[in-house]
């Protein structure tokens, strides 16, 4: 019951932060709330026993992502153009949510030790990793040894992303341009004349 209360209140806090982040118009506040979302999500991961994930989420999600977003914001307008609540996306999101809820109702009960996910390869990792790898943290031994090719692929993805960012804004392949002013008005008057 205590687990339920902690979990549910953390998720309620997350929902509050998410709604605020989408409602505010100052982009600086939006980005900071996005960092706060990651931090509370990290706390939620600790409650769900995923300490390594919590660690990474706090460092990467709340740390590096926020730094990247702030660096981007320094080059962009600080305010969002105000929008009213749009009904079609809200309807689509509700519909998708309902479909997901129907799909999720087939999943095993939350925390059930007899669920299929806990009874095939996972026990072998838990029992065998101490003999085979010798590292007490099972997540580390799976990440770095049993599934090290996955981790290698992840490194490749990061490399590709860095390459893409450098090619898009790096300045090696293009001449720098002055940002154009939004020139809708002048265009319109030209058309009229």
């Amino acid at each position, binding site marked *: 019951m205590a687990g*339920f209360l902690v979990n549910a209140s953390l998720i309620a806090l997350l929902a509050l932060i*998410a709604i605020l982040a*989408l409602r505010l118009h100052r*982009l600086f506040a939006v*980005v900071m709330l*996005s960092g706060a*979302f990651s931090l509370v*999500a990290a706390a939620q991961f600790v409650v*769900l*026993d*995923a*300490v*390594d*994930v919590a660690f*990474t*989420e706090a460092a990467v*999600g709340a740390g*590096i992502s926020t730094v*990247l*977003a702030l*660096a*981007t914001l320094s*080059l*962009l*307008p600080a305010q*969002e*153009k105000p*929008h009213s609540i749009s009904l079609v*996306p*809200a309807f689509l*999101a*509700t519909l*998708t*949510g309902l479909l*997901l809820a129907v799909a*999720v*109702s087939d999943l095993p009960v*939350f*925390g059930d030790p007899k669920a299929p*996910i*806990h009874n095939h390869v*996972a026990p072998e*990792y*838990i029992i065998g*990793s101490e003999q085979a790898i010798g590292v*007490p*943290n*099972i*997540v580390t031994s799976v*990440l770095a040894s049993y599934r090290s090719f996955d*981790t290698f692929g*992840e490194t490749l*993805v990061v490399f590709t992303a860095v390459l893409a*960012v450098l090619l898009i*804004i790096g300045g090696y392949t293009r001449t720098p341009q002055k940002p154009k002013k*939004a*020139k*809708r008005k002048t*265009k319109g008057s030209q*058309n009229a004349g």
Partner: protein
Amino acid sequence: MNPFIEQLLGQWNYYLVIVLMMIGFYGVIARGNMVKKIVGLNIFQTSVFMLYISMGKVAQGTAPILTGDPTTVYSNPLPHVLILTAIVVGVSTTAVGYALIIRIHESFGTIEDDDIIAQLDDEEDVS
């Protein structure tokens, strides 16, 4: 007890996570500002991680770090490993997204998608 309510109580975590997911999804499709789209995508993504981590939880279990005591119940380490990889991949795609936004702002002077579409329409009208 009514089986429907029993199931709802057994899977409450998944349903709450779906609500979070849909808030993020709404942000991605409803907001015209590109920074907000990326923030919505981040919320969506973190909620998906939460769904996976919830599946790995075992009742009365503890974090999957060996304690030496054979009676300890561990949560499933496999979703944790998958999500560790996914977090890093997620931040990489976010970085590429921000780079594209900077580039779009240089070319169009705005990061609102309806303004960009209006500018493109104007250029078509002129030519």
